[in-house]
C-alpha cells in the first residue's frame, strides 16, 4: 500500500433524529435529496472531485441502505485498488468493543484505519451536509499556515450563531477562541465541522482523549478546545457558497426549495465538479398529455400526469391525473394518485397519497406535512 498524503474520515453514523419519520429506518446521510441524490453523495463527490481517494465511512445507525448504496464506491469513482471507500462500523475486540460514543470516539476507534494508511493529513467530514468544496484548496491553506489543525468556517447569521461552534480569529486566520454552541456568541464565524488534522497529532490527541473520563469525546466540545489550550497552531479556512446541514424537517424542506428558481444558490449542473450518485438506470422522466410543470426538478423514471409547481419530483415518483402538487418534495417512488392535492409536504420514499386526498397546508405557520417511507395515506387519514 502506497503512502497517502491525505485520507478522509466521513462521519455517517448519526441518526438525525430531528428528521423524524425520514430517518426512522435509515441513517441521515442516506436520506434522499434533490430528486436523485442521497445526502452522502455530496461529501463523497467532494472527496472524488478533490482527489481524496481514500475515504473511511463511519457508520452506526440503521446502516443497511447506506452500506448497499455506497457499495464499492464505484459510483463516485472511489473503487480504487489502493484506497477507495472503506465502511467502518463499530466492531468487537478481545476486550469487548463498543458503540461510537461521540464524533471523536468514532475516529478513535478507527485509529487502526488511519495508521494502516499512514497519511500526513486526515480530513474529518460529516456525511450529512450539503455543499461543494475543493478539499485540496483547504489542504493547501493548511500547509501554507504550517497548521496543526485547520477548521473550515463560514459566517452565519448572528441569530443562528448559537447553534454552531463559534470561532474568533486573528488577522492571520489563526484561531484565538473556539466556543461550542455559545449562548452569547461574540463572533458569527461558524465551524462547519470539517477539519484537516496533521495525522500524528490527531492520533496522539485522540488516544489521550480516550483516557479522559470527563471528556464527551467530541471534536467541537473536547478536541479543538484542548489543542487550543495546548497552544497548537489552529487556523481557519473560510468557505463561501452554499452549505447546509439539514437538521430538521423545516430546514430539509427549505433547503430543497432552495434548489428551485431560475438562479438557485446551488448549481447542480456544474459538469466539472458533478455531484455523483449511485442511481439505477431508469427511463427519462415522462410528462403526460395533461401534465403541467412549473419550476420543478424531476428525476428519471418520474411520471407526471397532473400539475406540479415549485416542487421536487424524485426518481420514479408519480403524480396522477388532475392531481396538484405544490411546494412539496416527492421522494423516490412517492405516488400522488389521481385528483389528490399535496401542498407544502414531504412524501417519503414509496409512500402513497390515495385518490382525491388533500394533504398539507399553504399556511406557513403550520408545520410542513411529512409522510414516512412506505406509508399509505387514504381518504380520511390526512
Amino acid at each position, binding site marked *: 500500500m502506497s503512502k497517502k498524503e491525505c485520507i478522509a474520515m466521513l462521519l455517517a453514523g448519526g441518526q438525525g433524529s430531528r428528521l423524524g419519520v425520514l430517518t426512522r429506518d435509515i441513517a441521515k446521510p442516506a436520506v434522499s435529496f434533490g430528486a436523485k441524490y442521497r445526502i452522502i453523495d455530496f461529501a463523497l463527490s467532494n472527496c472524488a472531485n478533490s482527489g481524496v481517494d481514500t475515504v473511511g465511512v463511519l457508520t452506526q445507525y440503521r446502516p443497511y441502505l447506506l452500506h448497499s448504496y455506497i457499495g464499492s464506491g464505484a459510483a463516485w469513482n472511489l473503487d480504487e485498488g489502493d484506497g477507495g471507500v472503506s465502511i467502518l462500523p463499530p466492531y468487537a475486540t478481545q476486550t469487548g468493543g463498543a458503540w461510537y460514543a461521540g464524533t471523536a470516539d468514532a475516529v478513535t476507534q478507527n485509529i487502526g484505519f488511519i495508521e494502516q494508511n499512514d497519511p500526513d493529513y486526515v480530513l474529518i467530514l460529516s456525511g450529512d451536509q450539503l455543499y461543494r468544496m475543493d478539499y485540496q484548496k483547504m489542504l493547501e491553506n493548511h500547509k501554507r499556515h504550517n497548521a496543526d489543525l485547520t477548521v473550515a468556517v463560514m459566517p452565519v447569521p448572528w441569530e443562528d450563531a448559537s447553534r454552531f461552534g463559534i470561532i474568533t480569529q486573528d488577522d492571520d486566520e489563526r484561531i484565538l477562541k473556539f466556543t461550542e454552541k455559545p449562548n452569547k456568541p461574540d463572533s458569527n464565524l461558524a465551524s462547519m465541522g470539517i477539519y484537516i488534522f496533521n495525522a500524528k497529532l490527531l492520533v496522539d490527541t485522540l488516544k489521550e482523549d480516550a483516557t479522559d473520563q470527563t471528556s464527551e469525546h467530541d471534536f467541537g466540545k473536547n478536541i479543538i478546545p484542548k489543542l487550543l489550550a495546548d497552544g497548537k497552531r489552529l487556523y481557519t479556512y473560510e468557505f463561501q457558497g452554499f452549505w447546509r446541514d439539514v437538521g430538521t424537517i423545516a430546514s430539509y424542506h427549505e433547503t430543497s426549495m432552495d434548489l428551485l*428558481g431560475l438562479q438557485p444558490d446551488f448549481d*447542480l449542473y456544474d459538469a466539472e465538479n458533478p455531484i*455523483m450518485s449511485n442511481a439505477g*438506470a431508469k*427511463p*427519462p422522466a415522462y410528462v403526460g398529455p395533461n401534465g403541467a410543470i412549473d*419550476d420543478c426538478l*424531476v428525476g*428519471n423514471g418520474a*411520471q407526471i400526469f397532473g400539475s406540479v409547481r415549485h416542487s421536487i419530483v424524485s426518481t420514479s415518483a408519480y403524480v396522477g391525473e388532475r392531481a396538484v402538487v405544490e411546494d412539496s418534495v416527492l421522494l423516490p417512488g412517492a405516488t400522488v394518485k389521481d385528483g389528490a392535492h399535496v401542498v407544502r409536504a414531504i412524501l417519503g420514499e414509496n409512500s402513497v397519497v390515495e385518490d382525491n386526498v388533500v394533504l398539507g397546508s399553504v399556511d406557513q405557520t403550520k408545520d410542513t406535512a411529512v409522510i414516512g417511507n412506505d406509508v399509505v395515506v387514504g381518504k380520511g387519514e390526512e
Partner: protein
Amino acid sequence: MEKLIGLVTANYSTKYPSALSETRPVASVPYLGRYRVVDFALSNMANAGIRTVGLIMPYNYRSLIDHVGSGRDWNLSRKKGGLFILPGSAFGTSRTGSRFLLRDLEHNKVYLKRSTADLVILSSASFVYNMDYNQLTAVHSQSGADITVVTKSATEKDVDVTGFVVDDGRVHGIRHGVSFGDEAFLDCFVVRREFLLNLLDWYEQNDYLDLFEALSGDYGRVDVRTYRFDGYAEPIFNKDAYFRSNMQMLDPKVTAELFPAERPIMTKAHDNAPAKFESGSHVSNSAVSGSCRIYGTVTNSILGRSVVVESGATVNNSIVMQSCVIKSGARVENAIVDRNNVVPAGTELRGTPDDLFIKEKAAD
C-alpha cells in the same frame, strides 16, 4: 440449470442508413433519450443471469466501446467471465444487413471454445425489446431443437428484417424482408455451444454468408424452431421505424412493459443532474432525460441528456439528442436532431410527419 454465455453481434450496417447510423454503428444509436440500442441486448442477457458476454465490434467502434466500457453497468466487469470485446471482420459492415455473418463467428471461435457453457444466446443489437431469456432457454432445452430462434408476427413490411418460412413451428427457409403476418426474426437465438462450433466447422468455406443463409440447404437436417415473443419488440433499422419506436415510448403502457422493475434496461451511468422544468416552460406528452433544462415548449417529443430548450423555443413531434441547445424562438418540428446541435435563435428545423427532417450530429 444449464450454463449460459452470450454473444452480441454489432458488426453490420443497414441497407438504408440514415444520418443517424452513418456516423455510428446501429448498436450505439441513441434510443429514448438516455439509452443506446445495444443496451437491450446486453440487459436481456444480464437479466437472465448471464455474466459472460462477447461483443463483436464493428470497425467504427469508438462510440460503442465508449458506451460499454468494462461492462460494469451490465454486471459484466468480472474476474471470471465478463465482457469480451471481440474483433469483427473487415467484411462486416460492407456485407449489408448480415447480423450473424459467419466470418465474424469463425473469427471468434476461440471465445466459444474456451467456454465451458452448455448454451450460447446470440443476439444482434437491432431490436428494442425486453425478454426473459430463461424462458427461451427452458423451451429450447425441452424441445430438443438444435437452434431456437426468437420471432414475432410481423406487423408491417420491413425490408431489413429477416423472415422465416415456418411450418408447424419448424423453420424451412428464410426470406430477406418481411410483410404483414410473416414470421419475423428478432435477431436472437439460442444454440448448444458444441453444436454452434460444429456449424462453424461445416460452413467454414462459406464464411461470406450469414449463418441463416448458410443453413438454407440444411433446414431439413438442422432442427431450427421458433419461439414466439408476444411482448413489445420493434426493429430500428431505418429512420422511420426508429422514430416510430421512440415515439411509442410516450405511451406509459409500453414503457411499463419495456422497463419493468424486475428486468431493468441498464445503460452507461452518467452523473447527470435531475431535469429542470423552469417557470414558464410548457411540456406535455414528452420524455425528458437527466440534466435537461427547459424554459420553452416541448410537446410529443423525446429529449436526450443535457438538452436545453430556451424560452420561446418550441419542440414538437421530434427527437432531440444529447447536448443540443434549442435557442430562443427556434422551432423544431417533425425532426430528429442528432447530438451537439445548436439550433440558432429564430430558425426552424421542420420536416413533415411523412418526411422527417434529420439534422446530423455536430462536432463536439
